[in-house]
C-alpha cells in the first residue's frame, strides 16, 4: 500500500480509537498521538519528496498509486502528490496538531467533538492526496458536512443560523462542482477521472470549457470565499468553536484555492486564459472589500473572518494571474494565511475563554494581564500585515511581483488596487492591537484573569515557529511549490 493512504487511514483509525475511548484522558491521548503521527507523516512525505526530486524524478505527481474502484465509470482510488499538495499536507497536519491542543478543554461531548473533528481532517487530507476527480470531490464533501454539527453543537452566538448558512452555501458550490466534474469526464474524450491524464491528453472542446470552467471555478471559489459568495465565511467563523475556526479558515478555505488551481485551471487552461478577467474582478473585490469590512467590525472573530476573506481572495487573485511567480505566491499565501489565521483564531478562542467577550470595546490592556497571549497576538498581527521576516511578507511580495509581470493596463490597475489591501490590513490590525492590548483596562474583573496554560502555549508556539520559518527561509518552500506550479503554467503558456 502506498504510504499516502495513511493520511486517510490514520484519522479513520483515530475515530475508531475515540469511539472506544472512555474518559477525557483517553480521548486526549488518542487525539494527541494521532495528530503527532500525522505531523510526522507529513514531514516524512516532505523529506521523501525532496529526496525523490533531488534524485531527478520529474514526473508531475510522485508516489502515485491507482486502484480501480468503480469500473463502469472508470473511477479510481488514485493518490499522488506534487510540490503544492506536499505543502498543503504539511499545513493541514500542523493545524490539526495545533487544533487538538486548542480544544483541550472542549465541553460538552468531547468524544463526539473529536470524532467530527477527525472526520473533517479525513476529508481534508483525502482531498489533498487525491488525483482522481471523483475521490477528490468525495473527500471535499466529507470535509464539509462535519462543519454543520461542529458549529451547531459546540459553537456560540447565532450558531444555528451560521451553521445552516455555511453548509448550504458550500453544498451549493459543490452542486456546481459535480456538474463540472461530470462534464469534464464526458467531454474530455478520455472517460477518465484522473487529473493528470486529462490535463496531459484530454481535449475538452472550447464551447464546453466556457461552460465547465465557471462551474468548477465558482464551485471551488465559494469555499475560497470569492465575492459575492463569501457571506457564509464571517458568520461561520464567528460562531464556530476555536479549533474549528482554525481548521476551517486555516485549511478548509484552502481547499477552494487548491481546487481552482488543480481542477479549473489545470484541466481547462484555454478557458482560464479567456475568462480569467471576470473572476479577477470578483476576487479583486474580495480582497479590498474584505479588508474594508474588517476595519469596521468590533467582534474579534468577525475581524479575522473578514480578513480571511481578503487574504483568501488574494490567493484566488494570484492564481488568476496565471504565471509561475504569482501562482507560487498564491500557494505560499495559502500556507502563510493558513498558519497565521489559525494562530489568530486560537488566540481569540483563548482570550474569549477568559474574558467571555469578543467585543473589542469591552476589553483593553490585555498586555498587562496576559502577556504571553498578547505578544503572540502582536506577532500574528505583524505576520498578517506583512512584516518582513514573517510568512505574510514573503507570500504577498511574491504575489504582487508576479502580478506586475503582466504588462497590460487591466492587470496592472487591478494589482495596484489589490495592493491597497496591505495598507488597510495595517489599519485594522493596528486598531485591534492598540485597543485590545495596549489601551486602558476596561473591566476591572479582567485583572484577575490568568495567562495561557501549557497546552495553549504549545498550540500557539507551534504556529508561530512555522510562520517564522517560512518568513526567514522562504527559498526551499518556494522551490518546492514552483515545481508543482510549473506543469500548470506550461499548459497555460501553450494555451495562449
Amino acid at each position, binding site marked *: 500500500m502506498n504510504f499516502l493512504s495513511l493520511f486517510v487511514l490514520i484519522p479513520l483509525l483515530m475515530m475508531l480509537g475515540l469511539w472506544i475511548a472512555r474518559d477525557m484522558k483517553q480521548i486526549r491521548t488518542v487525539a494527541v498521538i494521532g495528530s503527532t503521527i500525522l505531523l510526522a507523516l507529513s514531514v516524512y512525505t516532505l523529506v521523501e519528496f525532496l529526496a525523490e526530486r533531488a534524485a531527478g524524478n520529474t514526473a508531475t505527481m510522485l508516489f502515485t498509486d491507482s486502484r480501480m474502484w468503480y469500473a*463502469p*465509470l472508470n473511477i479510481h482510488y488514485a493518490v499522488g502528490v506534487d510540490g503544492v499538495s506536499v505543502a498543503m499536507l504539511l499545513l493541514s497536519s500542523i493545524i490539526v496538531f495545533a487544533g487538538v491542543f486548542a480544544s483541550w478543554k472542549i465541553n460538552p461531548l468531547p468524544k463526539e467533538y473529536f470524532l467530527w473533528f477527525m472526520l473533517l481532517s479525513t476529508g481534508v487530507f483525502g482531498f489533498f492526496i487525491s488525483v482522481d476527480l*471523483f475521490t477528490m470531490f468525495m*473527500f471535499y464533501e466529507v470535509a464539509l*458536512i462535519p462543519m454543520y454539527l461542529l458549529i451547531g453543537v459546540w459553537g456560540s452566538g447565532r450558531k444555528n443560523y451560521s451553521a445552516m448558512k455555511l453548509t448550504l452555501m458550500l453544498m451549493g458550490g459543490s*452542486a456546481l462542482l459535480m456538474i463540472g466534474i461530470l*462534464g469534464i469526464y464526458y467531454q474530455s474524450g478520455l472517460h477518465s477521472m484522473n487529473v493528470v491524464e486529462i490535463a496531459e491528453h484530454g481535449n475538452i472542446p472550447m464551447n464546453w470549457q466556457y*461552460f465547465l470552467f465557471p462551474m468548477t471555478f465558482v464551485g471551488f471559489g465559494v469555499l475560497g470565499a470569492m465575492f459575492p459568495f463569501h457571506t457564509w465565511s464571517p458568520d461561520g467563523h464567528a460562531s464556530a468553536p476555536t479549533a474549528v475556526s482554525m481548521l476551517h479558515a486555516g485549511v478548509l478555505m484552502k481547499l477552494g484555492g487548491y481546487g481552482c488551481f488543480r481542477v479549473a485551471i489545470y484541466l481547462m487552461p484555454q478557458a482560464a486564459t479567456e475568462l480569467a478577467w471576470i473572476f479577477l474582478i470578483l476576487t479583486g473585490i474580495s480582497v479590498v472589500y474584505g479588508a474594508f469590512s474588517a476595519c469596521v467590525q468590533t467582534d474579534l472573530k468577525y475581524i479575522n473572518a473578514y480578513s480571511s476573506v481578503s487574504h483568501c481572495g488574494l490567493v484566488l487573485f494570484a492564481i488568476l494571474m496565471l504565471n509561475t511567480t504569482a501562482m507560487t505566491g498564491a500557494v505560499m499565501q495559502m500556507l502563510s494565511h493558513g498558519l497565521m489565521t489559525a494562530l489568530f483564531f486560537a488566540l481569540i478562542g483563548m482570550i474569549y475563554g477568559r474574558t467571555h467577550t469578543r467585543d473589542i470595546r469591552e476589553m483593553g490592556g490585555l498586555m498587562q494581564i496576559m502577556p504571553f497571549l498578547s505578544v503572540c497576538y502582536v506577532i500574528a498581527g505583524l505576520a498578517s500585515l506583512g512584516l518582513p521576516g514573517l510568512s505574510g511578507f514573503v507570500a504577498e511580495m511574491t504575489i504582487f511581483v508576479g502580478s506586475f509581470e503582466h504588462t497590460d493596463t487591466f492587470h496592472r490597475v487591478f494589482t495596484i488596487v489589490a495592493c491597497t489591501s496591505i495598507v488597510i490590513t495595517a489599519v485594522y490590525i493596528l486598531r485591534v492591537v492598540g485597543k485590545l492590548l495596549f489601551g486602558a483596562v476596561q473591566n476591572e474583573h479582567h485583572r484577575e484573569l490568568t495567562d495561557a496554560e501549557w497546552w495553549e502555549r504549545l498550540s500557539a508556539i507551534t504556529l508561530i515557529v512555522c510562520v517564522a520559518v517560512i518568513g526567514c527561509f522562504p527559498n526551499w518552500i518556494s522551490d518546492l511549490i514552483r515545481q508543482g506550479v510549473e506543469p500548470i503554467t506550461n499548459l497555460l503558456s501553450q494555451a495562449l
Partner: protein
Amino acid sequence: MDYSQFLIMRGEISLLLVFLLIFLFDTFGGKKSLKGLSITACVLFALHTVWNIIPVDSATAFGGMYQTSPIASMVKTVLNIGTLIVLLQSISWSDTPDVKLRRGEFYELLLVTLFGMYLMVSSGHFLLFFIGLETASLPMAALIAINKKDTESYEAGAKYLFTAVFSSAVFLLGLSFLYGVSGSLYFGDIAVAIASNHTPLLIATLVFVLAGMGFKLSLVPFHLWTADVYQGAPTQVTSYLSVISKGAAAFALMLILYKVFFLDPVIWQGIMWALIVLTITVGNLFAIRQKNLKRFLAFSSISQAGYIMLGIIAGSAQGMAALVYYVLVYIFSNLAAFGVISSVERSSGKVGMDDYNGLYKTNPKLSVVMMLAMFSLAGIPPFAGFFSKFFIFASAIHSGFYILVLIALLNTIISLYYYLLVVKAMFINNENDCAIAPFRSDNASRVSLIVCVAGILLLGIVSCVYTYFTDLSLIGA
C-alpha cells in the same frame, strides 16, 4: 405445453409458496401458535430471498407474456431485501392489541402486493402488467386501513383506494388507445407498430400511461394523495409503500418506456423532463414546512422519486443500473428512518419533529441511525446516498441532460436543508419538557436497523454492487 416454463418463474412460485404456507398457518394454526406467525413469515421470506438471490437469465415464457432479464430478477431481489427489513420491523408492531387479530392478513396482503410487483417487473404484455398493477394496489388499500379502530388509517385507506382506482382507469384508457394505435398488447409488437407512426394519438397514449404510473410513483402533479396516506397508514405500511411500491413502479415504468417507446425516446423525454423538475422541486419545497415526520418523509419520498426518474430519462443501460442501485440505497436509507420513527412511535406515540428535540441525549443510538439515514438521503459522502446520487446524475449527464441535472443538484441543497433540520432537532436543540424517554427497541427492529446502517455505510464504499448491476443491465439490454 412445456411445463419447464414455470422454472423461469421460480421467483414468483417461491413467493406464492411462502404466501400459501403463511395462509395455511394463519387459517389452521390455532390461536396459540399465531404468536409465532411473524417470526415464521420472516424466516420463510428470508429463505425465499436467499433462494432467488442468483439472477435468472433472460427468458420469455407463455408466448412472450412473461419476460425476464437478469436485471429484472435483480430488482426482485432488491425488493425482497426491502420487504424483509419491513417484515423485521413489523414483528413487535403486529403484537399490539389493535393489529394482533389481523396479523395474518397483514402478512398475506403484503406478500400479495409484492407478487403483483413481481408481475409488473417481468411482464411482456400489457394485460399481465395491468393485472400486476392491480394486484399491487388493491390489497395495499386494505393494508393501509388495517387498523380498523384508527379513523385516520381508515381515511387513508379510502383515499388510496380511490386514487388507485382512478389512476388505473386512466392507465387503462391509455392502454386502449395504445391497442388502437398498434393492434397488439405485446410490448414487442407495439414497439414495432408505433415505430414509424407518430400520430397525436400516440402522444395522448403516452400521457395517459405516464399519468397512470405517475400516481403510483407519486410524481407531481399526481402526488396529492401521498402525504395524507403516509400519515394515516401504520408506519410499517408507510415504509413499505414508500420504498418497495415506489421502487417496483419506477422499474416497471422504465421497462415500459425502454421496451415499448425505445425507438423514439424524444417523445417521452420532454414530458419526463417537466415531470422530474416539478416533482423534485415541489416535493422539496413542501417538505420544508412539515412538522410531522411521516408527512415529512412523504414529501421527501416525492422528491426522491424525481431523482429516481433521472435514471429513466437517461434511457440507457447505465441509467438502468443507476436506477436499481439508487432504489437499493434508497430502501436502506428510508427504512432506517422509518425504523427509527416506528420505534419511537411505539414507545412514546410521538411523530412530531419537535418531539425529537434532544433525542441524542436520551437515545443516542437511534439518533445516530436517524442521522445516517438523513445524510444518506441527502447524498452526503461517504454514505451510500452520495454514490447513488452521483451515478444517477452521471447517467443523466451522459445522455446530455445538463440543465436538468443542474436543477436537480440545486434541489439537493434544499433537501439538505430539511434533512439537516431533523439532525438539528436531535443533536443541537435542547430537549423540551416532554422529551422522549430512553427506551430499548425490540430485537427484530434492532437487527433491521443494523442491516440498514450496514447498507448505508458499505454500499458506497464497496464498489462491487454497482459494478454488478451495470454488468447485469448490459446483459439485459
